[in-house]
């Protein structure tokens, strides 16, 4: 396309734009009308520029929703024969249908078909903040969604189509349910689980169309590129405007650049996507159950996104305090995990009525993934030492000061602080299985199934607060400690507490069950 600005001077363009704007406001003086006529008559470039300005005006109007008309129910019953009479009511309804369609498609950059009926049902949700036309709309489980621009500002949303296709969207996401077989994803992360009868289901992004060939896949869409990861089966990626298609098979991933349309192979990273809002079973969890935990936080996704569920028989539930981030659920090591964003985000979880260990037998283990190592970053802490006063607490499990190595401190039965730490900083950007055990005589620290440090420890204090901080060190009450709360930056998953000391072999077996 020729750029009008390349043929007219900046001054000429600005003057033309000013006259065009005044024409739209009906405030042109006669002399200015003549000037505009003259400019447009003399120059093809000026007419092109005027056309470009006209298109800009139309887009701006459409973008800001300056049309309004309800969708008539009559228009939704496709296939029914109707008579077009010289009946103004029908014509008005048809017009409404058309104009409403204009509204519905104002975010649609590619060719689409009109739709007005329910397309998919909200089958699950967690803390979902859903906006239609930038107005908050209920995201109630069981309600249906129609076509049109939708914005998932917060939380997670699971949609189920009548064909059995299940889509999981993670905020922030902008999307449009185009039809029973096509989802437009302008930006955000989505996964699709497509049963055999729905083969051909397509997710379209600004970069490409991803056509299912019987599979489960994830798409991360943005204006600049789209990433496609195939979990199972196979998909076909069709580049807009390109004849060549790419067939992407299981455990492969590709990035499609919006500008070049060229597929680029990238690492397969299924952990980037939440594939289900339900927590799956696993051999790891079977083992955990066998060892009889007193608290088992799987970081299960809940409808209101604020409940921390303990799946053990004790039901020591807690709550998730969301800081600045739009959601705290993210793909975990198994199922979902708790995503925390460090000291700037200030998200954490708290268990107000925690059961401290009645004797010197304790194990705490978790899968953790750190994005950075904030000072004294916390995994789980039952601790009450602040403002220089040692008030007890049974364990302080996290990263050591600024060095960032895995560490644990406990108070022995005499109240003395006993601690051990790993020799290297905790690796960033990868899941690590971390644990400590206390058997009455020894405190042992483990990482990825291996003991990394140990020290004698005589018993365990019974002077301890009743609360547990997860991803945080609590101060007085249930608030983060004022001086150094040690907010975790990264993800925590499968945090489990046992009132017994697991053996090295049991710790190893837990680690091995997930590898």
């Amino acid at each position, binding site marked *: *396309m020729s*750029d*009008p*600005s390349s043929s007219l001077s900046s001054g000429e*363009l*600005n*003057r033309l*734009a*000013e006259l065009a*704007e*005044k*024409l*739209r*406001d*009906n405030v*042109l*003086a*006669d002399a200015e*009308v003549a000037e505009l*006529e003259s400019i*447009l008559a003399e120059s093809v470039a000026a*007419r*092109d520029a*005027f*056309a*470009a*300005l*006209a*298109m*800009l*005006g*139309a*887009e*701006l*109007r*459409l*973008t800001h929703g*300056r049309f309004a008309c309800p969708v008539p129910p009559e228009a939704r019953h*496709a*296939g029914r*024969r*109707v*008579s*077009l009479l010289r009946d103004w009511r029908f*014509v008005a309804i*048809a*017009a409404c*249908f058309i*104009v409403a*369609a*204009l509204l519905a498609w104002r975010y*649609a*950059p590619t*060719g*689409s078909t*009109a739709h007005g009926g329910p397309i998919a049902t909200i089958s699950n949700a967690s803390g979902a903040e859903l906006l239609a036309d930038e107005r908050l709309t209920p995201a109630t489980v069981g309600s249906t969604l129609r076509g049109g621009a939708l914005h998932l500002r917060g939380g997670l949303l699971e949609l189920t189509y009548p064909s059995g296709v299940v889509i999981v969207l993670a905020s922030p996401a902008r999307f449009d349910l185009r039809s029973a077989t096509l989802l437009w994803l302008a930006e955000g992360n989505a996964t699709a689980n497509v049963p055999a009868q729905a083969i051909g289901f397509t997710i379209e992004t*600004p970069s490409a169309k991803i056509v299912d060939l019987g599979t489960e896949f994830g798409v991360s869409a943005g*204006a600049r590129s789209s990433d496609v990861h195939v979990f199972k089966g196979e998909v076909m990626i069709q580049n807009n*405007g390109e004849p060549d298609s790419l067939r992407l098979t299981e455990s492969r991933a590709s990035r499609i650049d919006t500008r*070049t349309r060229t597929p680029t192979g990238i690492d397969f990273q299924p952990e980037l996507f939440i594939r289900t809002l339900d927590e799956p079973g696993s051999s790891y969890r079977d083992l955990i159950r066998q060892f009889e935990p007193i608290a088992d936080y799987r970081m299960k996704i809940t409808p209101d996104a604020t409940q921390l569920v303990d799946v053990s028989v004790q039901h020591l539930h807690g709550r998730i305090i969301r800081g600045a981030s739009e959601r705290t659920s993210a793909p975990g090591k198994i199922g979902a995990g708790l995503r925390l964003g460090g000291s700037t985000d200030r998200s954490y979880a708290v268990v107000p009525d925690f059961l401290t260990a009645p004797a010197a037998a304790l194990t705490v283990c978790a899968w953790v993934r750190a994005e950075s190592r904030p000072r004294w970053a916390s995994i789980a802490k039952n601790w009450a030492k602040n403002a220089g006063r040692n008030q007890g607490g049974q364990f302080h499990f996290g990263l050591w000061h600024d060095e960032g190595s895995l560490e644990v401190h406990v108070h022995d039965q005499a109240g003395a602080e006993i601690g051990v730490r790993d020799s290297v900083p905790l690796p960033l950007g990868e899941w690590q299985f971390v644990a400590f055990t206390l058997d009455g005589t020894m405190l042992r620290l483990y990482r990825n199934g291996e003991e990394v440090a140990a020290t004698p420890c005589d018993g365990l204090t019974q002077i301890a607060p009743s609360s547990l901080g997860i991803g945080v060190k609590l101060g007085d009450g249930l608030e983060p400690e004022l001086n150094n709360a040690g907010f975790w930056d990264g993800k925590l998953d499968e945090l489990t507490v046992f009132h017994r000391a697991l053996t090295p072999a049991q710790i190893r077996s837990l680690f091995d069950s997930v590898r």
Partner: protein
Amino acid sequence: MQVTRTLIDGEVFTRLLLQNQRRIAGLIFSLVPRGPDADDVMQETCLVLWRKFGEFQTGTDFGAWALRIARFQVMSYYARQKRAQARLSDETIESLAESLADARWESTDRAEALRACLGQLKERDSELVRRRYHSGENVDEIADHVGSTVHAVYKALARLHVRLVGCVNAKLHSARP
């Protein structure tokens, strides 16, 4: 005369209209004063297009056909105005409709490109866009709100529009392989 159609016709029509709506809106909203008049002409044009859809020859250029009808609707609007109104000549309107009939304006990536360009605006320009297009303020109101003159606001809008057109064109151009 009674014409019987199925809603399948309606779907075909709607699809064609959606593909060309921006060009039709571009012509009407650039020539008819903003406000209810422009909305009315747009709606009337949609109605006339639907009413005359039976005359449209499948396989020909729907956009060019629709823009011809839109042009006549604009002219008809001008003719209905009893008071004197600043307007362009029929010849100029026709030449603008012909310009917009060029297939290049069909690019459906335009909305995405514009959204990206809007996201790059400085706060002052974003406020101008919000007031003008979201709140629907006229230039007098904008001048009052921002403590400027009407003349200066027109200049600012013109510069902003030119910048946005350049940005959109650059993005569309760079998006091609």
